[in-house]
C-alpha cells in the first residue's frame, strides 16, 4: 500500500500541468501513468494552441467563436474562463521553457485555425503538443515529482462519499498496488480507439471514463465525437488543421474546391464538423478519389512546407507514400476527439468529493457539441492548472475521514487471475477490430436510428463473446496481453454509452448529425446528457442545463 496526498492519473498535458501547480507548493503528489509520461498522446498534437494576443484580436472574440463552434452546447461560464485565461496560460508555459515560433515583432507567431475569426493559434512548427508535453515534463522533473510509470489504473475507490484512492497494476512486475489519497485527479485522455480509422494513440482507450462511470461518476455528452476532416487515408494518422491554416485546399475528384458549396465564407477553414460532413457527402455522392478526398498544399511551395509543416511532409511520405510537395495527399475523416467525458465543473471537481478530472477525459464543458482546433491543448493547461489550484485548497480542509478498502486490491487481482485462467477462445484483439469497424460504419459522421440500433446489437453480441476471451500470456512480467484485454472492456463500455446517447439525442448539433433529425432542436435538446449505470450495470440517462451567460443561440453558418 502506498499513501500520498494526491494521486494524478495520467501524464499528458492536463496531468502534468496539474502536477506542476501542486509541486510548486510542495504538495505530496504521485503521478501514475500507463506509459512513460513523454509517450502520452498529447505529444502528437500538431497544429497549435489558441490564445488572443494580437492587438486586433480579443479574448472576447475567442469566447464567442468557441461558443458558436460548440453549437451553443458549451457552458459559457466555463468558456469565458478558458478564453480569458488563455493568454496568461500560454505566457506562463513559455516562461516555463516551452518554445513557440516567433513572429516578426518578436512575439509568439500565430496561424489561422478552423472556426476562429482571427489567426490565434500559437505553434511550434507542426509539433506544438510535443513541445508542450516535453516542456511540462521537464518542469515535473524540476519539481522532483514522484512518478509511477507503466502502472495501469484499474479502479477508483471511494468511502463515505469521498474519494479514497486508486488501485493500479504494475505492468513491469505484474503486481497490484493500492494508492490511498485524499484527492485523485483523472487526466486520462480520450477514447479514440473506439473507432477504426482514428487519429489517436493505441493507448487512448477511455479507461478513465469507464472507471469513473463504474464508480458512480456521471459521464456527460458522450454522443459528441469529433471526426477530424484530414486524416491519412490508409492509417488515419492526422494531418493537422494547421495545413489548411497555412492555406491548403480540399479537392474532390473533379479537382473542385468543394467547400464553396458548404461554407462559402470560411471555405476550408470552417469548423471540423462542417468540413468532415462536406467530405463525407462528396465521397458518398461519388466525387471522392478511391474513397478519399485530396488535400493539396503544393501551391504553398517547398520552402514554406519545410518550415511550417515538416512533420506533415514526413508523415505523408512515411505513411502514405506521397510527397506533398509534388502530389496532393489523400485524406478522409477519422475519429479524433472526445467532446464528452467525466462531468466536472470549471475547477475540475466531479460529483465525488476529492475526485477531479481535467483534459480530454473531462467534460467541463467548453467544447459542447464540437471542439474548435487548438482549443483542446488550451483546455488541458487551463483546467489542469485550475484543478491543481483547487486541489491544493481542498487539501487544507480535507479530513482523514475515509478508509481505503484494501479488499479492492484483491478483487482486481482476482479479476486478472480469472482472466488468465480462462480457456475461452475469443481473442480481444479481434473483438476490438469488429467493434471499431461497427462504430465507424454506424455511429460515425452521419447517424440514423436503425443503423445505430444495429450497432447496439453488435455491442450486445460482443459483450457476450467477451465473456469467452482467452489470454495467451500467463506471465507476470510486462504482460501487455492482459492489459489490452482490460482496455478492450473499457472501450466496449464507452462504445455503448456513446451509441445509447446518440440514439437518445433526436436532433443534429455540432458533431452529432442525425440524417433522420437533420435540424438543431433548441427547445428540446439544448441540454447536456448525463450517463450513469444503474444497479444492474445498465446505462441510464439524465439531463442538465447548459450555462448560457452572454450569447443567445443563433443559427450557425460559416
Amino acid at each position: 500500500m502506498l499513501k500520498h496526498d494526491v494521486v494524478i492519473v495520467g501524464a499528458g498535458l492536463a496531468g502534468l500541468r496539474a502536477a506542476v501547480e501542486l509541486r510548486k507548493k510542495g504538495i505530496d503528489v504521485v503521478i501514475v501513468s500507463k506509459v512513460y509520461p513523454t509517450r502520452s498522446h498529447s505529444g502528437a498534437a500538431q497544429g497549435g494552441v489558441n490564445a488572443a494576443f494580437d492587438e486586433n484580436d480579443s479574448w472576447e472574440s475567442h469566447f464567442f467563436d468557441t461558443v458558436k463552434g460548440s453549437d451553443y452546447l458549451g457552458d459559457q461560464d466555463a468558456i469565458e474562463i478558458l478564453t480569458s485565461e488563455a493568454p496568461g496560460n500560454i505566457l506562463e508555459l513559455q516562461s516555463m521553457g516551452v518554445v513557440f515560433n516567433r513572429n516578426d515583432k518578436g512575439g509568439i507567431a500565430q496561424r489561422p485555425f478552423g472556426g476562429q475569426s482571427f489567426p490565434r493559434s500559437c505553434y511550434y512548427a507542426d509539433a506544438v503538443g510535443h513541445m508542450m508535453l516535453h516542456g511540462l515534463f521537464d518542469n515535473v522533473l524540476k519539481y522532483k515529482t514522484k512518478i509511477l510509470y507503466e502502472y495501469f489504473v484499474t479502479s477508483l475507490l471511494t468511502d463515505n462519499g469521498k474519494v479514497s484512492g486508486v488501485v493500479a497494476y504494475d505492468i513491469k512486475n505484474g503486481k497490484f498496488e493500492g494508492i490511498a489519497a485524499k484527492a485523485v485527479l483523472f487526466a486520462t485522455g480520450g477514447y479514440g480507439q473506439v473507432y477504426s480509422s482514428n487519429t489517436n494513440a493505441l493507448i487512448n482507450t477511455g479507461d478513465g471514463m469507464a472507471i469513473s462511470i463504474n464508480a458512480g461518476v456521471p459521464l456527460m455528452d458522450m454522443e459528441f465525437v469529433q471526426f477530424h476532416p484530414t486524416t491519412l487515408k490508409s492509417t488515419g494518422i492526422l494531418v493537422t488543421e494547421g495545413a489548411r491554416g497555412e492555406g491548403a485546399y480540399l479537392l474532390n475528384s473533379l479537382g473542385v474546391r468543394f467547400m464553396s458549396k458548404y461554407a462559402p465564407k470560411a471555405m476550408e477553414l470552417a469548423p471540423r464538423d462542417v468540413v468532415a460532413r462536406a467530405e463525407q457527402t462528396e465521397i458518398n455522392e461519388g466525387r471522392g478519389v478511391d474513397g478519399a478526398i485530396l488535400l493539396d498544399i503544393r501551391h504553398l511551395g517547398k520552402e514554406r512546407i519545410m518550415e511550417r509543416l515538416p512533420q506533415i511532409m514526413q508523415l505523408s511520405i512515411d505513411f502514405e507514400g506521397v510527397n506533398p510537395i509534388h502530389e496532393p495527399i489523400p485524406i478522409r475523416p477519422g475519429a479524433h476527439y472526445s467532446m464528452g467525458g467525466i462531468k466536472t465543473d470549471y475547477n475540475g471537481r466531479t460529483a465525488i468529493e476529492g475526485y477531479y478530472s481535467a483534459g480530454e477525459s473531462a467534460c467541463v464543458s467548453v467544447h459542447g457539441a464540437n471542439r474548435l482546433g487548438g482549443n483542446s491543448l488550451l483546455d488541458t493547461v487551463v483546467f489542469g492548472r485550475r484543478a491543481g489550484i483547487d486541489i491544493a485548497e481542498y487539501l487544507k480542509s480535507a479530513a482523514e475521514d475515509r478508509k481505503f478498502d484494501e479488499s479492492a486490491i484483491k478483487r482486481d487481482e482476482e479479476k486478472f487471475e480469472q482472466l488468465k485462467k480462462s480457456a475461452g477462445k475469443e481473442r480481444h484483439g479481434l473483438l476490438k477490430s469488429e467493434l471499431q469497424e461497427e462504430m465507424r460504419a454506424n455511429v460515425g459522421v452521419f447517424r440514423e436510428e436503425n443503423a445505430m440500433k444495429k450497432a447496439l446489437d453488435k455491442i450486445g453480441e460482443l459483450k457476450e463473446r467477451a465473456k469467452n476471451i482467452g489470454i495467451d500470456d500467463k506471465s507476470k512480467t510486462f504482460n501487455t496481453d492482459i492489459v489490452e484485454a482490460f482496455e478492450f472492456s473499457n472501450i466496449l463500455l464507452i462504445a455503448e454509452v456513446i451509441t445509447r446517447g446518440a440514439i437518445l439525442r433526436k436532433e443534429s448539433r455540432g458533431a452529432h448529425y442525425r440524417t433522420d433529425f437533420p435540424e438543431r432542436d433548441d427547445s428540446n435538446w439544448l441540454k447536456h446528457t448525463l450517463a450513469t449505470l444503474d444497479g444492474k450495470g445498465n446505462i441510464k440517462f439524465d439531463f442538465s442545463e447548459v450555462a448560457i451567460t452572454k450569447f443567445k443561440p443563433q443559427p450557425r453558418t460559416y
Partner: protein
Amino acid sequence: MEFKVRAYRFNPETDEKPYYKEYTVEDYPGMTVLNALIKIKSELDGTLSFRRSCRSAICGSCAMKINGITKLACKTQVSLEIDKFGIINVEPLANMPVIRDLIVDQEVFFDKIKAIKPYLLGQREDAAHNIFKTLKEGEKISQPVYDKSEFKNLTGNEDTPNCILCECCYSECGGVVGNKDYLGPAALAKLYRYVEDPRDIDKNGSRLVNGSMPNGFWDCVHCQSCEQFCPKGISPVKSIVKLHEKSIKNSITFSSGSKHVVSIARSIGETGRLDEIKVAFESGGVTGLLNDLPVAFGAGLKGKIPPLRLKLIKDMEDIRLAYKELDLEDKL
C-alpha cells in the same frame, strides 16, 4: 503476399536464455513493422511483448532493431525491409537490459536525462512580467519580446527540441558501449537545447562545467551513430561538438577531454605536428601517460615510435594563418 517475422523472445520467468520465434504474416499495402507485430499479437500469439503508443513516430515507444538496424517500428515499411532482407528480424535495443522480448529497461536512460537538469535554471529579466493573469473585459496582455534569431537553434526541424527520447541513438552509441556511465547522445542533446535557450540564465556556467565532468560530453567517441540512427533527423554529435566549442571558448578546460583538444591544437599550432607524448601528458597528466603506456609499448613493438623532438613542418605559416582566421591564437 506472406512474409516471415523472426522475433527475439525472452521471458525471465520461463526462459534461461533468449531464443527466436518465427511467424508468418499476410502483407497489405502500407503495412508497417509495428502493424505486423500488432497483427501477430492479436491473431497469433498474445505473448509477444513490445511497447507502442502513437503509431506515428512521435511518442518514441517502439524503437527496436529491425534487420539489425535500430529504427522505429511504426515508421518502417514492411515492403522495403522484405525487398532488402527477405524477412523481418526484430530484436530489442542494445545498451539497455532486456526486461522481456522487445522491451528494454529504460530507467538508466531516463536517469541520465534527469541528470543534465532539463529545465530553465533562471529567467532573463525581460521575461519577468510573464505573470499569470485572468483578463477582464476589454483587457489585453503584453508579451515579452524575443528576437527570432535568439531561438534560431531551437526552432528548426532537426533541432534538439524535436527529440522524442526514443533511444535509437543511445542503443547504437559507441560511447555507452565503452563506458556505461556515459550520459549518451540524447541527454547531451537535451543539455545543448538548454544551453542554447536564450531564457536560461546559467550565471556561473554550471551546465558546461557539469557537462565537462567524467561521463559528460568529453566522453563522446565521435562514432557518429547517433546522427546516423536518429529517426527525427537530429544530430546529437553536432550538439556535442558545439558543447565542446562553447566550453573551450569559455575556458572551461579542466577535463582531460578538453585538455586533449587544446593540447592537440597547441601542438599543431606550434610545430604543425602532433606531439603524441606531450598531448598524452597534457590531457591526462602523469596517470594518463601511465595509462597509455601499454598502448604505446604495443605500438613500439610494432616499430611505431613517436619522435621525441618534433621538427617544424615546411608550411607552418599557413597553419598560423589558419589559426588566425579561426580566432584560435589565444588558445595556443
